[in-house]
């Protein structure tokens, strides 16, 4: 007996649209970017940690937070990776262009890590510990989402500094 022909079915290419609420402090985060091209974190009065993005609760202390702390658009690379493999980006339904660099960035004044894209894909030119700065879209093009930050760029340090 010959092997049976086995069929599969491809799902129609339909988007599943969602409209997610960002919340009070998350909204402030994006508003601060638009108004002042800087970030805002939130401080826990119990453990003292400043976390970004700002959220309502300190999970460790299970305590409601309300003390917003302005943070500069600069930070340090804690870890990074240069992504080389293709995958379907759920945001677009298309393959995301590679390579691109995914970075773990500790913003100055924050105790936790913020992740975003770093515009350096040459592994010889990027290292853990390097200083980076956020590059924002022009205010008029901002939409109140994470892409209002275009990417982070490495701050060139002149020799001897």
């Amino acid at each position, binding site marked *: 007996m010959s092997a049976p022909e*086995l069929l*599969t079915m491809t*799902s129609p290419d339909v988007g599943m649209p*969602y409209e*997610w609420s*960002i919340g009070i402090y*998350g909204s402030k985060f994006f508003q601060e970017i638009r108004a002042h091209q800087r970030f805002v974190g939130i401080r826990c009065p119990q453990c003292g940690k400043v*976390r*970004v*993005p700002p*959220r309502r609760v300190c*999970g460790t202390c299970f305590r409601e937070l309300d003390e917003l702390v302005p943070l500069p658009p600069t930070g340090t690379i*804690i*870890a*990074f*990776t*240069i*992504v*080389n*493999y293709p*995958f*379907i*980006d*759920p*945001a677009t339904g298309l393959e*995301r262009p590679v390579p*691109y660099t*995914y*970075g*773990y960035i500790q913003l100055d004044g924050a105790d*936790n*890590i*913020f*992740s*975003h*894209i770093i515009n350096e894909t040459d*592994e010889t030119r990027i290292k*853990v510990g390097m200083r980076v700065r956020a590059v924002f879209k022009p205010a008029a093009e901002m939409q109140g*989402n*994470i*892409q209002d930050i275009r990417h982070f760029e490495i701050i060139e340090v002149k020799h001897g500094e």
Partner: protein
Amino acid sequence: MARRVAIIGTGQTHHRSQRRDVNGREMIHEAVQRALADCELTMRDIDAVVIGNMDHFEAINSVDTWSVEGSGGVMKPIMKVTTGGTTGTSVAIAAYYHVASGMFDKVLAIGWEKNSESDTTGAIVTCSDPIWDRYSYSGAIPSLATEASAYMEKYGATQRDAARVALRERTHAQNNPYAHMHGRPLTLDEILDSPMLAYPIKLGDICPRTDGAAAVVFAAEDVAEKLAPRPAWIKATAVRHTYSWFGDVDQRTGLESLERAAREAYAAAGIKNPAEDFDVAELYLPYSYAGLKWIESLGFCGPGQGPQFIWDGHTDMGGKIPVNPSGGVMSTNCIGATALLRVAEAAIQVMGKGGARQVPDVKTALATGFGGCWWSDVVILGKEKPA
């Protein structure tokens, strides 16, 4: 007062990259039939079913109700438990509480995934917060890569050290006829020469995507002793899903959730010196660097000593504490089943049913789960009935 609970049977599919010959329900059914056969029960004997997977890999909403004809859940209590990569251990722990509570005597735990049915990374990307992380996140690999690079930075571990872990997993898989990578051995050089996916992770350092299912039968004390010549008793379970935000996890320390879960489970099971007290471990190691760092979090060796511990052969078959005789996650990764396979394989070792992958005379076995936002589950099994 919780009742004593044991695993009395396990079943799994022969894991493959794609199972076009069966739909999800039919694949689940294969594992269920094998688990029932293993403890000589029929579906009629089962009191309740717990099942888990990750919704977006197959795009099926409410898998528990969709799967009843395959899971055996028709006219039985069914429940879906799902927590990402830890789903399999969450399902096992849920089955444990089904029995420990006194509500049910014989409970079937099922984990499954047909990862071939969607773009695995595309589906995993949606686990990241849609507001904050989804734009830059690109799935599990870069996330793990950040941990690996931080560990290398701190202790000087190398890509070669990681490849030694990958070599162990792939070598062990050759003893496990169910493993996806069975029949496909690799050498250290082949692993080191494999393509770079996201520095420092190469193709040879990361788990595959697999179609497969696992099923495990949990039973109450009196039933277990009647039905199984050597039940695998549950000695302790512990869960820490510590963080909700990726950015709150400090990659420069040990795996905090695993340290906390292990501490709690070790205390409950009387484990003082894990590398000596456990006879075998089935660890959820989704990539090679975890095999260096997370055995430190589990206390097998001190911080930074992972690479030496691996090169000394302590985790190989015949070593002090063989890790992943099954070949582990890097040899089989049907995600909703993956952590349940760790529990099943640990039970197989305690029950002495491991065939070519059996570690001699296993009294105490460790299984772990990993997933979500750097979450960890720990399950300890033993030959001796717990006090």
